[in-house]
């Protein structure tokens, strides 16, 4: 692990407290789950049968019911506070082995990875594109938020990852998701315009440093050159499909400005405005406006950088971009 933290030394000037950062990177990540409100009825019936609380007024997700269930089995659930129905879970090492997971009552998703869909703020009736969607946690958050009306188009280029996406959508009972398998850089333009687009771009995954080796992911913690071009192409394509006045959330789980602010600076034109992200309950550091001697768009300061030590999470960088309405 120490070696991986060393790979991140290039960001030492961007981080307010290097020691806190380095020590956060050494700790394992807490497990986080969110409750699926579409399965609330199922959850209530299970709780009735087990003699557990089955109604919780003012709790639209049913999270309180799920927490009561898990606590009754001896697991510790701590309310995340900023995301309705989401909990940090301790003691449950294999959440996939529970009936609740099989029935789609909850989904396991890292805390920081809940952020982009919240920043996107999906509204009922909208047509929303998730360009690099698999395995589908963020798609599911959006689909649940607009379950009363609206459509999510969830795209991913890799067929094996699309299978995971489809499997998650079926388990969670998401009916308003259409899945496509395009290369995002060539996504057909006539599919748009979309009211909002989430581009959770493929990246070097430096922010996954806390997942450690052997987590099934590529060894995290090393900045890769050569991702920026793909990210810029994806962002350019997304921009063409975004309706005037629409929102685009660009996110990566990597710290490198080359994959975040510099991609935004390179790809966005005068019709784009990076907006401040208002976020209650989590602390973010501002974006980078100068890197390796190059000055970037001033509105890059509005990019939100979630360093692991700020909220005891993984790492994520998120930007909310608004497209100017047509004159």
């Amino acid at each position, binding site marked *: 692990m120490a070696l991986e933290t060393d790979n991140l030394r290039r960001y030492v000037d961007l981080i307010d407290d290097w020691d806190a950062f380095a020590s956060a990177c050494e700790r394992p990540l807490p497990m986080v789950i969110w409750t699926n409100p579409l399965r609330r009825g199922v959850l209530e*019936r299970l709780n009735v*049968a087990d003699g557990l609380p089955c109604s919780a007024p003012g709790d639209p997700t049913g999270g309180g019911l799920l927490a009561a269930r898990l606590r009754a089995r001896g697991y510790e659930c701590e309310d995340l506070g900023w995301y309705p129905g989401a909990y940090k879970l301790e003691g449950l090492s294999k959440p996939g082995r529970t009936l609740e997971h099989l029935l789609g009552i909850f989904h396991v998703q890292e805390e920081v990875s809940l952020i982009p869909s919240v920043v996107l703020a999906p509204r009922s009736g909208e047509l929303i594109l998730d360009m690099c969607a698999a395995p589908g946690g963020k798609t599911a958050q959006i689909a649940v938020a607009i379950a009363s009306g609206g459509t999510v188009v969830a795209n991913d280029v890799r*067929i094996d990852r699309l299978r995971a996406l489809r499997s998650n959508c079926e388990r969670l009972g*998401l009916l308003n998701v259409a899945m496509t398998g395009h290369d995002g850089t060539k996504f057909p333009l006539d599919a748009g315009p979309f009211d909002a687009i989430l581009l959770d771009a493929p990246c070097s995954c430096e922010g996954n440093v806390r997942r450690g080796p052997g987590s099934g992911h590529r060894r995290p913690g090393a900045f890769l050159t050569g991702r920026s071009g793909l990210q810029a192409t994806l962002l350019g394509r997304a921009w063409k499909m975004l309706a005037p006045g629409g929102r685009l959330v660009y996110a990566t789980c990597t710290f490198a400005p080359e994959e975040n602010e510099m991609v935004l600076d390179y790809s966005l034109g005068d019709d784009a405005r990076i907006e401040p992200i208002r976020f209650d309950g989590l602390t973010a550091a501002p974006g980078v406006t100068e890197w390796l001697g190059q000055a970037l768009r001033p509105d890059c300061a509005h990019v939100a950088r979630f360093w692991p030590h700020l909220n005891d999470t993984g790492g994520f960088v998120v930007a909310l971009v608004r497209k100017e309405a047509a004159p």
Partner: protein
Amino acid sequence: MNRVPFLEIDGSLYAEWWRDRFDLERDPFAGMRFYQRGRAKIWVGTAEVAGLTGTRMDVVGIHILRIGRRFWKPTSAAIVAFAGGARASVVELDRDEVVRFLAGQDVCLAEDDPRRANLPRGFLAARYHGVAVGCAEWHGREAVRSLIPKNRRIMEIDL
């Protein structure tokens, strides 16, 4: 993954069959769209895809039914979503049985098991604690077969 086209169809026949098969009080598919891929696979969803012409549409919503053979086969995902209130074609499992069922194993019904009386042949909703957990197959022999897909089976369930 996309060799066979995915077409919107009139699904009233399938909605009626489903409601009849599980004797449901209400049509669980009200307001939804039906799709078919190939001769046998039926899907249901609410996605507004009319404006997406030209998009290579891989999947919309949930795969619910395989038709075309003697018995139409619902998927386990569809049973969980749309057969919770079943009053027919449903087999109630106890705790030990649901553990076996979710591991993909058969559940034996003894000759004098009262549940045998009400079970039609074909595919059933398996239910535990009043909650539909997946699709089962029954042909009047000694056991109800679990049709939980391989990638969903739970070998050591934490119940």
